[in-house]
């Protein structure tokens, strides 16, 4: 069954915090098209683990600072 991804990200905020880096520049640095970066930012496409690490490395932050995954109710309890 198709289900929406629960992964969220802070790529847009991080881009602005890094001298207002453009989508085209970040896309170029991680080796994808600008359309793919837009899809990732909007949560329409989940990047591979390798690409996620490349994005985090561009911003110089841990993976958790870029991508978040909500805890399940059992984990919160």
């Amino acid at each position: 069954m198709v289900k929406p991804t629960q992964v969220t990200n802070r790529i847009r905020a991080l881009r602005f915090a890094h001298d207002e880096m453009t989508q085209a520049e970040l896309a170029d640095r991680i080796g994808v098209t600008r359309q793919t970066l837009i899809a990732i930012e909007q949560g329409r496409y989940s990047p591979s683990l390798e690409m996620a690490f490349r994005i985090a490395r561009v911003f110089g932050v841990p993976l958790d600072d870029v991508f978040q995954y909500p805890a399940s109710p059992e984990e919160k309890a």
Partner: protein
Amino acid sequence: MTHEEKRAWIRLVVAVLGYAAYVTVIVSRAGGRRLPDVPYASTLVWTVAAAIVAAIAAEAGMAIVVPGASRAKDVRDREIGVLGEHVGQSFVVIGAVAAMLMAMADWDRFWIANVIYLCFVLSAVLSGVTKVIVYRRRFPEW
């Protein structure tokens, strides 16, 4: 819109228009005759050839109209391409099985050839629709 998304649109439109043109020609030729009596082979071959040439010409035209457009293809394009082909492949199998059963049942060659062609077109359409939907919306996760 990425280069691959434009190609998906072109192939989808060409597949639909090509088949519509083929059906129009065959039906207009019938003129009251039974469809299996209508000459179809050369029209079918020419339609398929014209569709391939039209798709190539449209892609070339796109490159001329927007010369600076990126032709880059990344992992998402490849994943969408694989998904689209996977979805469309079902109709190729359906067409092959249908043609096999029709041949075993001694159906007229007209129907066998046309079922195969129809399933190729449906495969291309389903594949194309899947690709453009995934490009516009979200990549499915199971």
